[in-house]
């Protein structure tokens, strides 16, 4: 059981770390994810930071789509 717990928490840790890094990227380059962020106050980015970090697998695709568009 301990090994299952270690794997689960390891995955959770890596997921969180990538999420935080993606969140920091969002704080700096939010309009690359959503163009509406360009006209949005900067403090909104900080409010959205935890959610962006939590849902990064869903949002990271937006970044690649905007690059290929």
């Amino acid at each position, binding site marked *: 059981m301990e090994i299952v*717990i270690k794997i689960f928490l390891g995955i959770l840790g890596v997921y969180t770390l990538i999420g935080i890094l993606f969140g920091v990227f969002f704080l700096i380059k939010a309009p690359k994810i*959503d163009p509406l962020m360009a006209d949005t106050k900067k403090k*909104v980015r900080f409010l959205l930071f*935890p*959610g962006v970090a939590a849902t990064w697998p*869903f*949002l990271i695709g937006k970044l690649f789509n905007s690059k290929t568009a």
Partner: protein
Amino acid sequence: MGLNYQLVLWNNHKKTYDKLIVLGMLLYIILFAVVTLVFNSETSIETLVIRAFGSLAIIMLHIILVIGPLARLNSAFLPILYNRRHLGVSMFIAAFIHGGFSMFQFHALGDVNPIYSIFISNMDYGSLTDFPFQVLGFLALLILFVMASTSHDFFLGNLSAKTWKRLHMMVYAAYALIIAHVFLGAFQQETSPFTIGILVFGFILVSSLHLITAFKEGHIDTAKTEEKEGWLKVCDISEIEEDRAKIFTVEKERIAIFKYDGKLSAIHNVCKHQGGPLGEGKIIDGCITCPWHGYQYLPANGQSPPPFTEKVATYELKLDGKTVYINPKAFEEGTEVNPCKI
């Protein structure tokens, strides 16, 4: 509905509701503390905080879970529904304080990582009476965190309404984990009888209201109708209230048929914002207004008034005497359709 994002979508009504939420939370915590200290003066401050905020979060979660069914059964509850998002975030804050204090008191003072400690301090995963119930609370808190942190229009737009809705339907998984967390905790006498009482009453209330609503909605979707030269009979015009709608199901799609200013118009029932039931809203300032968050659409073309860009499908209606008929073929989203004159 906007061309940029706001920090918090506040208006005077929402500010009043938010003040009521904060006041209600404060009053509950004070009352809980007073009652606990009167009946059990040896309770430590940490235990008091853990129990007060834990039970508060459970009560708030039940309110959140019953708002939807109640608003569907009686429109008088709609104003509470408008503020469900803020109530959800407030509930997460209460749950976070409960979880944070629990983790600090039981897991943070050793030399093991506190989160790791939650999972390994009790390894009786095969036991019912000694199950490590705190793990379930931790997992529920993770779900509530994801939900609270994505309670913003940015995520609706960027995750897509479908994904966002699925993510937020995980509230039922969190609810199941919380029920197990409290009941399994009770075996180890870590949970007060008061909290268990709330949970039993709440579970009966939540499940009953959901079943009643499902029965009512199922009736709408399975209603039989007559067909006349490709048009489907909806109802007598007197069955639709002024500035309100009747919801009618065509080929598994719900349509809202509104009566206003001596006219009738039909649009798809699902709001583009969060999937709210437009047919349960009303006409305000000439626009169909979603009961959930106030998104608006023009009845004749299903488009949000400029500069907004949301649009829904429209349908053609006709009157034969006093009977309303609908053409089941949907027009493209935002298509102008001449309103049916009464």
